[in-house]
């Protein structure tokens, strides 16, 4: 489909690049957002881009909605044809899978789950055709993920795994959202992973936790800038499975202010990725390992 343009009240314009998720749609939303930010258009307050759409908040006192619409349609066509190459970074995020906290929370809200007799990990593994939870966890962290949107509450990233569609993990959300989710939970809903930035309500299946803070209202962590939020759309994330022992060690480093995140700058070319995604991913991860 072509992009769908629609107003949200008198201050928002939504552009839906596609109704399904794909790397192409994500790249289009990202480049459209970048082009709009660089454009000389006045009256634009904010652009939220992510997954397969982008939302513009504008002030109709400075730009007429009809004029904005016609300008954005032009930019959207340019974005459609822009070269899908971005300068970004690969970030390693350690994950303690099968941790006691998400397990306890999952048990507490079992009656809201599709299958109260198994854990979220057991449910997701079986639904996605993995014989064991270990194989599922391995698939979860062996291929990297794109941060395809940032937001929800306090900088929560949505992550889209960089594998062909038939290998993507898909799970439904809880039947009814939980009123509690541990901080830093690695969740999954639809085809998206997420990291809960703060403790709170949530409906995604829960697979583990990371000791790495991703939201920093008190400005205490050196890896997060003054925006308080670590992730940006376009970041590439490599999860690494860690033990409970290593979880404790990293948590102590975070507390003592000596934790440093493993990250490297990279250029990502969607065309090369699409030619051979597993080779492309391997090269990215080799760079990370060699850093």
């Amino acid at each position, binding site marked *: 489909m072509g992009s769908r343009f629609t107003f949200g*009240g008198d201050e928002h314009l939504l552009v839906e690049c596609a109704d399904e998720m794909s790397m192409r749609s994500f790249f289009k939303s990202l480049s459209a957002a970048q082009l709009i930010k660089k454009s000389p258009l006045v009256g634009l307050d904010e652009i939220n*881009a992510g997954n397969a759409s982008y939302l513009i908040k504008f002030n109709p006192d400075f730009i007429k909605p009809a004029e904005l619409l016609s300008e954005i349609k032009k930019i959207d066509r340019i974005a459609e044809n822009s070269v899908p190459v971005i300068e970004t970074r690969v970030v390693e995020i350690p994950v303690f899978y099968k941790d006691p906290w998400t397990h306890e929370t999952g048990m507490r809200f079992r009656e809201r789950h599709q299958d109260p007799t198994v854990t979220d990990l057991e449910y997701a593994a079986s639904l996605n055709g993995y014989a064991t939870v270990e194989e599922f966890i391995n698939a979860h962290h062996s291929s990297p993920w794109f941060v395809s949107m940032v937001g929800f509450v306090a900088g929560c990233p949505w992550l889209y795994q960089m594998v062909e569609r038939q290998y993507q993990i898909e799970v439904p959300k809880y039947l009814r959202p939980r009123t509690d989710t541990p901080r830093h939970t690695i969740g999954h809903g639809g085809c998206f992973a997420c990291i809960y930035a703060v403790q709170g309500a949530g409906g995604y299946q829960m697979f583990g936790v990371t000791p790495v803070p991703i939201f920093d*209202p008190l400005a205490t962590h050196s890896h997060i800038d003054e925006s308080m939020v670590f992730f940006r759309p376009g970041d590439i994330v490599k999860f690494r499975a860690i033990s409970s022992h290593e979880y404790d060690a990293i948590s102590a480093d975070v507390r003592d202010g000596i934790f440093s995140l493993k990250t490297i700058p990279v250029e990502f070319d969607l065309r090369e990725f699409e030619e051979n995604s597993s080779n492309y991913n391997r090269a990215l991860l080799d760079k990370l390992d060699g850093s």
Partner: protein
Amino acid sequence: MGVKVLNSGLSTTIQDLGRPGYFHLGIPMSGAMDQKAMRIANLLVGNPENAAGLEIVFTGPTLRFDEACLIAITGAEMPFKLDGVSQSSWQSIQVEKGQTLEFDYLRAGARCYLSISGGINVPLVLGSRSTYLVGSFGGMHGRPIAAGDILPLGRCDFMASQVGKNLPTKMLPNIGVREIRVLLGLYSYRLTEGSISTFFSEKWVVASEADRMGYRFKGGQALEFVERKAPFGAGSDPSNIVDSSYAYGSIQVPSGTEPIILHRDAVSAGGYFTLGAVISADMDLIAQLQPNTSIQFVSIDMDQALLARAERVAEMKEIRGYISNS
């Protein structure tokens, strides 16, 4: 010095006009839910319109003023007394050092705004003093005010000419409006035509889940969706979409049953379709709706939305002119 909190009220937060610009990172604009009431309270005491005051919801705090200042209380109808003497809202009131402010129960509306000359001088966070409760920052350490807190005030050398400033009744905002105007759009193509007209013809009642993040409504019929094959990544429920950014004021209807209007502490994105958005001119009205209030959504077009916006700007201009000349 400052203002001592003797009793906090239900959930009294420090708010200014908000923190726009970070929603793309999941940090909402926050700020007073009834912006007009907050602006007027500030104008009455001679503050910049963006000064920080208190947003008081459902029940009021008890406060002791440890320095002389001017105050004004606007928004919901919630009678109050200064050292036991009844005072009027929508006007500036001189407070002597040591006086105590107490509120009676709520009579109409839902949120009062208290402005104090000099403004509440907590640190700016990302350019605003507004409290964002979910993110635990802004205002008083990211939480509602609590008994024992001392609210620091900015420089408090008010002009004697400012005392007793008020607004004529005809200029006061009408907090009793029960029609909320909506521009249909966003993902409304997910709904059948019949379901859209039903949505706008029914009475909807404010549910108990009505707060700074969003207002939930009950009582109408479940929405009917256009059939589809679920797009990859969207999820299987007919109300699911591939997660996308939410607009302030947008109306999402999870599973098609209970509409939720996202307000100033909204989540920035998610996987529920939205059928349109409340026009900017009517967002303040939502702040004054109590649970169990019955309302109706009214469908209007962009030209009408812009006209309503212009009327609101003109009213605010008239109020500014009146207060500065009185």
